[in-house]
């Protein structure tokens, strides 16, 4: 409702009018609207009367008791809160071992995961040690025969050159390609 629509007759459309009058008494209207209410009230004795009645009824509420609390109230309130605080502390304490166990389990799990990742990563970087043995398998299987054809000096210390020569002659067959088995010595 705008101030322009305020009715001079307080009985007409009384509820919205009362809203404006009460808001005026409560200081909740903007300056323009408050001035309009004052102008209307100055011209209309019924409006003035209604404003006066609303104001006086409001002032009568000052007669209401304002009961004060005694010291016992403060004491019992603080005791209640202390009991609540103790309860909270007990609950926190009860949750502590569970929380600790959960944290330990999580730490152990994390550690295992780190070890697994490290092992896998290391294996990939290092390569498979059995791979070299597999490569040299044809030589290892026939090492006694090779030693028989070596001279005394070579038997003491078989030379890599001699093995390479054998390899070039195709003694080792197709399983071992030239250039492979370099670690055969």
């Amino acid at each position: 409702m705008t101030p322009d629509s305020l009715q001079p007759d307080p009985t007409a459309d009384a509820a919205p009018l009362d809203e404006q009058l009460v808001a005026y008494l409560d200081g909740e209207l903007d300056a323009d609207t408050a001035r309009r209410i004052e102008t209307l009230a100055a011209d209309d004795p019924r409006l003035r009367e209604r404003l006066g009645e609303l104001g006086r009824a409001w002032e009568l509420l000052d007669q209401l008791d304002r009961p004060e609390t005694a010291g016992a109230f403060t004491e019992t309130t603080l005791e209640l809160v202390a009991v609540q605080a103790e309860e909270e502390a007990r609950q926190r304490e009860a949750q502590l071992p569970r929380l600790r166990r959960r944290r330990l389990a999580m730490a152990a799990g994390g550690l295992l995961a780190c070890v697994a990742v490290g092992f896998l990563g290391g294996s990939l970087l290092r390569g498979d040690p059995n791979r070299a043995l597999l490569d040299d398998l044809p030589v290892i299987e026939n090492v006694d025969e090779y030693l028989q054809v070596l001279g005394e000096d070579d038997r003491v210390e078989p030379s890599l050159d001699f093995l390479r020569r054998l390899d070039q002659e195709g003694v080792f067959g197709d399983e071992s390609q030239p250039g492979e088995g370099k670690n055969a010595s």
Partner: protein
Amino acid sequence: MLQVRDDSAAAFEELVLRYQDRLVALLTHLSGSRDQAEDLAQEVFLRVYRARKSYVPGAKFSTWLFTIANNAASNALRTLARRHEVRPEARTGDSTVVNPMDHLAQASSSQMPVRRLAKAETREIVRLAVESLGERQRMAVLLSKFEGMCYAEIAEVMELSPQAIKSLLARARGNLREVLAPYMERGEAPVVGKNENGE
């Protein structure tokens, strides 16, 4: 309140001392019973303590406190009303529980001579007039009158819009004016009808 949030017992005691009278006064007029008001006030302080970690700095503490009080009082009054619905005979013969409407009607009946009322009786008339308001109107009136809250603050406490508070207060003050008019005009005990806008 920030110190309370950080578990300072001394700060909480200070807070109780600072607000207990205001809270109990408001809840007494809201519930109509001093004992119930004290129980409710303690419940409110307990809720404040439990919710201390969720307090946001910057929010006006009194607004926060009275919001909690409003919720606690609404729940309690609703429970009480439900009990009375279930056991209407509970009131029968209970001289300490007085229906304000009945009391005012009796005061204005022909059995009670029209007379000037003493100050204590004036207080009683005003108290009963306030009690004749509905719960929401009463809360808005008490926050406005005794806590000096503006419409926006009352709206926050009661979780309504400022416009709704404006209407609520207008109806409440209109009802008060109507109930208290006989006393204001002629010093007579008020004639009270059923408050249709009691909410």
